[in-house]
């Protein structure tokens, strides 16, 4: 059995690794797409 296999045969280590993996995906998605677009379209301000 390799070290890697022995690590992942541990239920809690696998749980923690998976949790961290999902968190990393979520964080990546938030960083990529999380920032909102609050820009407003340009308009002709007549200024009267």
């Amino acid at each position: 059995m390799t070290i890697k296999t022995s690590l992942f045969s541990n239920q809690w280590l696998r749980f923690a690794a998976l949790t961290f993996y999902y968190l990393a995906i979520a964080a990546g998605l938030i960083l990529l797409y999380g920032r909102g677009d609050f820009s407003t379209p340009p308009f002709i301000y007549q200024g009267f």
Partner: protein
Amino acid sequence: MSTQVPGVEGVEGRSVKCSYLGSAAAALLLMAIALFWGVLFAHRVENRYIHALAPRHFAHKNVGIAVGRAAFRQSDLLPLYGASEIWASSQGKPELNRYRASLRFWSYPTGFRVFAVGKGATTALTMLQELTAIGPELRGKKVVLSFTWGPFQAGMAGPDAYGGNFSGLQAGESVFSTDLSPGLKQAVARRMLEYPLTLEHRPVLKFALERLAGGGPVNRVLYYAVLPLGKLQNLVLRLQDHWETLAYIRAQHDLRLQVAHRASSIDWRKLAMRAEEDYREVANNNPFGFANERWEKNSKEWIQRQGENSDAVFLRTLRDSKEWVDLGLLLRVLKERGAQPLILCPPLPGEYFNYWGVSASARRVFYTRLREAAEAFGVPLANFEAHDGDKYFVLDFGSHLSPKGWVYYDQALDAAYHGRFGELDLDRVGAGARSSRSQFDVSTDKQELEYQQLVKRVRQAAQAASPPKATVIVVSDGEDELLQMGDRKGWHFPQTDDGTYAGHKPADSTEAIGHLEALRAKGASFIVFPNTTFWWLDYYAEFRRHLESHYRVVARHEDSCLIFDLRQPAIAQREH
């Protein structure tokens, strides 16, 4: 050794699935906790920096809500919502910007700072969404609303203006709020749906608006069905709002948390005089008191407008503007939320409007209508009507405030914050208002003299046209002097049941006709239109047709008044 049968999950298979699900659930929980702490952190930073942000003008202030909510939580910040007049600069001399409220109250001279929010062509419907989104922080709080005359003219602020100020976050918070009355939400939804371009990429918002606007039990069920999705969307947008706000704060390297509070009493009169002196130096290349740079940029267009407008057109566009509807909705929202609004509105540039073709009496309709709109909700108002002819009060055609105008605004803001607004006499502050004289000045004393002469002519004409002891209705604008016609009995039109002036114009011709006939039934035998009210005959066209078809004109003087004899129908008179 366990034997695995293909296609059949064993204990081991179910255990693996549970660990994936468990990890996913744990990741979600951790994320939720992180977001919760992130929001708390954001609140802390926003509260810490809000005083520094209050006088600043930046894009996200207009479309977000985090900064606004933080401002409303502070007792030493006075929120001021408006449009470009909040930020318009005194071009040519940047140091004149010190009269602007955001800078005037920089060092808390009287104990507060102004939290100013506004962008060009912000209308009442936009302000409604900005303030609804603030939420429960509005309750018991003062908020000052600034309006200029432009949006109250149909066609001046078009759909582009609304779209250019639209915020999906603020709209979503308004639409999916659950503490406003259904009738109010329906009315707001109907107005928002009149701008479909703003809803193009917002299917949830659009769907909810359509359900709200439609009314009825089915639409109500569908609205509540989509409400959780709307709330979730709002949650995401609010998180993004916090992110944007924190990013802005982080990018500012000159935000000072500590600003020395320098208490000082302000001599408003002297300040107004100084402001006018300062402004005159940059407003001397045109006869209207407009800022030199504005005049240089726009003079060709503004000069060409001579006589282009008329009272009838001005009044029609005033009547047709939906800004009145939106203002009413905004005040309803603020009332339901328990806020304490105050309205400020710079005067029209009277000199220029005369040049344009709009008379003082037509302009008075605007001031009156705005006053009535505010009074209907018990909202204090300062529309600075007495400064209509003060050419150094505003710096351009759009009524952006000059330094002197700002001093008046600032005094009103100061009084509002300290609860003294009712004691303020806005005509008296800054005695310099009456000392600004040049060959282009409209002297208020001269106007007063002309008006008194008109009153005298109207009374004489009415006495000449009517028999002794006749009851004469006068379209009076509340002026009691017009009713003194010797032994003739003068009545206001319109009036309340006890005979006092009603305080507002009829909503339409139908109301005017009904009221006239009611007074005629009570004994009124003549109706007098002073020439300052000739515009009624354009504005209330059906009313005019009723008068002309039913009654006889007994006096027509362009320099005083028009009088109808109500005693007998015109047809009966012709037959006799």
